[in-house]
């Protein structure tokens, strides 16, 4: 590992040897954001709890916004302003993992099993909505140099408002766990604390905090989880790579930048629509389930029936791979208005077919299901780091492959197309190899049955002795 890093560092220094003042390191891409951010999030969450992790994350973003605002308003030399802007982004990039990596933990802590997926998908959908908003707002709001602080100035009070709201509203957990699995996790945590107290381990909390990082590393040996992890990373990374390189993919085929921009807009909009469709399907299924339970004698079981995550994963992966193939196949079309519309439509279809997988809610909840009784944020951390690494590698490889002459690049049988087909095929194949492993649902069902049948309305079931 150290040797690899040394070689990469040497290569990077060679690349930038002629640059007197700039270093751009691929290694930093991972080191700055995914890995340390994930480790920090795991440690803070295990040591101080979910609420503290979210609040520290919000505070880091408020600090980030304040420093960025200062970079364009303070009467400093320009390069000092740039340094401040850069430092602010470092803080923001690392700090955001403190809350983004905890999305499934928040949903599992607060929402009943029937609403966990919806809460995660809706939260992650809002990230895309924020991108859409600022893409429209920024060019409209800033037209002169002195107006640049308009982009930064209002972020400071906005983040402070979120931080204050978090202090007032956020709580560690509800009075009673919203699901059987949440009750079990809470009981396990209490039992560990009691065990440490009995053992008189003064540094117990610190030790167990780091054990969350160890659990994340241990997940790398969980074959089924790693299959899910790699499948998702390959497919979503490929779509992200295509979105990143839409200009290079389309331009050699005669399409202008406007077509590339329209294709990306179509992909983004359709991706959001895909998540909306997924949310609607989830809520419709839950309504049907609730109706059937309410109509059953005695109220019916309160435990969640397991969703067929594997079927969903395979289905959405197949759709995603199909969308990628369709997009690459349509890109070499001509430049007549009809062909151009078809190219843009193909990218829109890619967004529609891949949006649910890109959103991440399905994969994250699936991972939480199969890695139970580990806290859900552990698997999300591994997914985040792996996804960043795979996506970054795909962009680098794809960029290299697209540097072929334009005439060759526009044909479907190029190395780039082959690379895309390889990644998409591998991702889909891995998804097909997934085995149903619904530990969380199984544990909930088993516990319900142990308590003389499924828990029913009005009955309280204690899991303090699990």
């Amino acid at each position, binding site marked *: 590992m150290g040797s690899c890093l040394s070689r990469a560092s040497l290569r990077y220094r060679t690349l930038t040897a002629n640059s007197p*003042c700039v270093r751009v390191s691929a290694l930093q891409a991972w080191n700055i*954001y995914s890995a340390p951010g994930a480790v920090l999030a795991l440690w803070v969450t295990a040591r101080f709890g979910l609420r503290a992790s979210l609040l520290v994350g919000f505070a880091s973003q408020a600090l980030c916004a304040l420093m*960025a605002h200062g970079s364009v308003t303070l009467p400093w030399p320009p390069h000092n302003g740039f340094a401040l802007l850069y430092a602010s982004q470092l803080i923001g990039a690392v700090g955001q993992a403190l809350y983004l990596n905890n999305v499934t933990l928040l949903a599992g802590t607060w929402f009943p099993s029937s609403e966990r997926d919806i809460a995660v998908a809706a939260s992650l959908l809002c990230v895309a909505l924020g991108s859409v908003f600022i893409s429209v707002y920024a060019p409209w709001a800033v037209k002169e140099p002195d107006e*640049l602080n308009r982009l930064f100035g209002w972020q400071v009070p906005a983040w402070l408002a979120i931080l204050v709201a978090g202090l007032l509203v956020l709580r560690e957990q*509800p009075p009673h766990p919203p*699901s059987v699995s949440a009750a079990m996790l809470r009981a396990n945590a209490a039992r560990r604390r009691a065990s440490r107290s009995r053992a008189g381990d003064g540094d117990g909390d610190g030790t167990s905090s780091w054990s969350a990082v160890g659990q994340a590393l241990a997940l790398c040996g969980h074959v089924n989880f790693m299959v899910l992890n790699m499948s998702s990373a390959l497919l979503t990374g490929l779509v992200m790579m295509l979105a990143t390189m839409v*200009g290079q993919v389309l*331009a050699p085929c005669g399409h202008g930048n406007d077509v590339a921009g329209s294709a990306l807009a179509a992909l983004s909009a359709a991706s959001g629509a895909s998540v909306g469709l997924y949310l609607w399907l989830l809520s419709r299924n839950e309504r049907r389930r609730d109706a059937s339970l309410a109509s059953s004698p005695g109220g019916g079981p309160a435990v969640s029936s397991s969703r067929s995550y594997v079927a969903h994963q395979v289905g959405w992966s197949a759709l995603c791979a199909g969308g990628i193939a369709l997009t690459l196949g349509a890109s070499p079309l001509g430049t007549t208005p009809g062909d151009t519309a078809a190219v843009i439509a193909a990218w829109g279809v890619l967004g529609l077919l891949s949006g649910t997988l890109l959103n991440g809610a399905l994969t994250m909840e699936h991972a939480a299901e199969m890695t139970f009784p580990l806290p859900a944020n552990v698997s999300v951390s591994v997914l985040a780091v792996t996804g960043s690494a795979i996506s970054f590698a795909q962009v680098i490889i794809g960029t290299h492959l697209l540097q072929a002459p334009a005439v060759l690049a526009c044909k479907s049988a190029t190395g780039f197309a082959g690379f895309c087909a390889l990644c998409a095929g591998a991702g889909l194949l891995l998804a097909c190899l997934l085995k149903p492993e619904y530990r969380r649902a199984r544990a909930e069902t088993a516990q319900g049955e142990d308590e003389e049948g499924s828990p029913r*309305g009005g009955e309280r079931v*204690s899991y303090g002795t699990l």
Partner: protein
Amino acid sequence: MDDSHEYVPPLAYAPPGARPARAELETLAVSRARFGQLAVYVAACVMTAINWNIVVRLLAVLVAMHSTPALTRLLALLVWEKAPVYAIAEARFDVGVQQVNSLSNVRVSRRTMRVRAPRPVWWVAASPEQAFGTAH
């Protein structure tokens, strides 16, 4: 920290009249608290995306301008295009409008396939020299 380990099934599943009014109020309070958690979290998600899309573009452009040709090619692939904010940012940071124009003129080379792509990256970084303002 509340260490209750009791799972209370949702009220909707309870037989009519099986739960006291106090439990209903408790359920309502938990529902409101649940909504509050999600509302704050969602607001943070929106603001995070906004931050990405502003600061990251500025960093990407600022770094790309000073890159070696090889790195310029890589970075130019990753810089969001058609953003007037860029030129404004460069003027604000006084790093050379001519360089901005050069970058803006990076178009698709039909021979070399080098072109900017309309997508930002947040992870580009500057050198220690630039970060500390001792070079350039």
